[in-house]
């Protein structure tokens, strides 16, 4: 059971709703992922192309916990503004806080992120902070009131997988709030390896939406997350540079 900001969730896999080829594929993929938490973004209504409705027509808000993000914001003020607008939409007080620092890599601006986290936490938001894999900043975000810290595996949409397992492992070992790895996972073994570091969950979008078969990959990711969590809890065997037979050497014929 994953608990974030006092709320319980069954699944440790959180998913985004961007980049799907069709809304239908999105709906089926999200269902296959088993996710409880689904991220959405705040954008202007398009007054001219009315057909292009919002995402909520497609998501059962009774089934899914909608988590608004502040993707695309490049300053603390901008992210705060988007967070407030999202809250006014009235689903919940949670926000996946992003303050982007670089357009090419979409890496976070951790200074702006810390500032926005401090402000929003004071306003009663439950901030889930998208950050890099720096332990020191992760500790600061926790101290500033983040209910979850979300370090990256690799840059958003890159599919490069877990670039630095050691840093992620260290962050998890040192923080008290849940650690949800966000961004960069490319395939199921990445998700499994991430969970084996002991983290509490994973948020992903592109790896599912851009797979040749998004629904199939959503299922693979669900299994991969469960596998990694189960392996972490079970405690793996030691690595050895020398072989050890799994069959008894005694009792051989002469």
């Amino acid at each position, binding site marked *: 059971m994953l608990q974030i900001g006092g709320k319980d969730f069954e699944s440790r896999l959180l998913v985004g709703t961007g980049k799907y080829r069709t809304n239908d594929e999105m709906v089926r993929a999200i269902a296959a992922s088993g996710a409880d938490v689904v991220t959405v973004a*705040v954008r202007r209504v398009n*007054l001219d192309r009315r057909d292009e409705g919002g995402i*909520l027509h497609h998501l059962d808000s009774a089934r899914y916990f909608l988590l608004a993000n502040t993707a695309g914001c490049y300053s603390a003020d901008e992210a705060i503004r988007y967070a407030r607008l999202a809250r006014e939409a009235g689903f919940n007080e949670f926000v996946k806080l992003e303050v982007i620092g670089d357009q090419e890599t979409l890496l976070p601006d951790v200074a702006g992120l810390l500032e926005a986290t401090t402000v929003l936490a004071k306003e009663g938001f439950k901030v889930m902070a998208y950050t890099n894999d720096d332990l020191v900043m992760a500790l600061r975000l926790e101290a500033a009131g983040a209910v979850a810290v979300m370090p990256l595996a690799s840059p958003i949409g890159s599919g490069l997988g877990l670039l630095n397992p050691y840093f992620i492992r260290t962050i998890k070992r040192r923080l008290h709030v849940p650690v949800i790895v966000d961004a960069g996972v490319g395939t199921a073994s990445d998700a499994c390896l991430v969970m084996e570091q002991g983290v509490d969950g994973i948020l992903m979008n592109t790896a599912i939406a851009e797979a040749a078969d998004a629904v199939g990959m959503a299922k693979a990711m669900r299994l991969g997350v469960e596998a990694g969590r189960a392996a972490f809890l079970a405690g793996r065997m030691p690595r050895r540079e020398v072989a050890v037979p799994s069959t008894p050497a005694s009792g051989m014929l002469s």
Partner: protein
Amino acid sequence: MELMINGDRRTVPAVETVAGLLAALDLDPRAVVVELNRTIIRRPTVADTPVVEGDQVEIVHFVGGG
């Protein structure tokens, strides 16, 4: 009347409130959030919040995102 809506100058039928504006734009008040001159309009107050010529209006909703 003329308003700046979502970054564009637009001429809309004269309305008196945010609720009226949404109606004029054929938007469901429960599906959008309105920011009037950089101030978020709480949903319960859209009917009581006046809109005047030249106001800056942002109307947002949720879209797909990661």
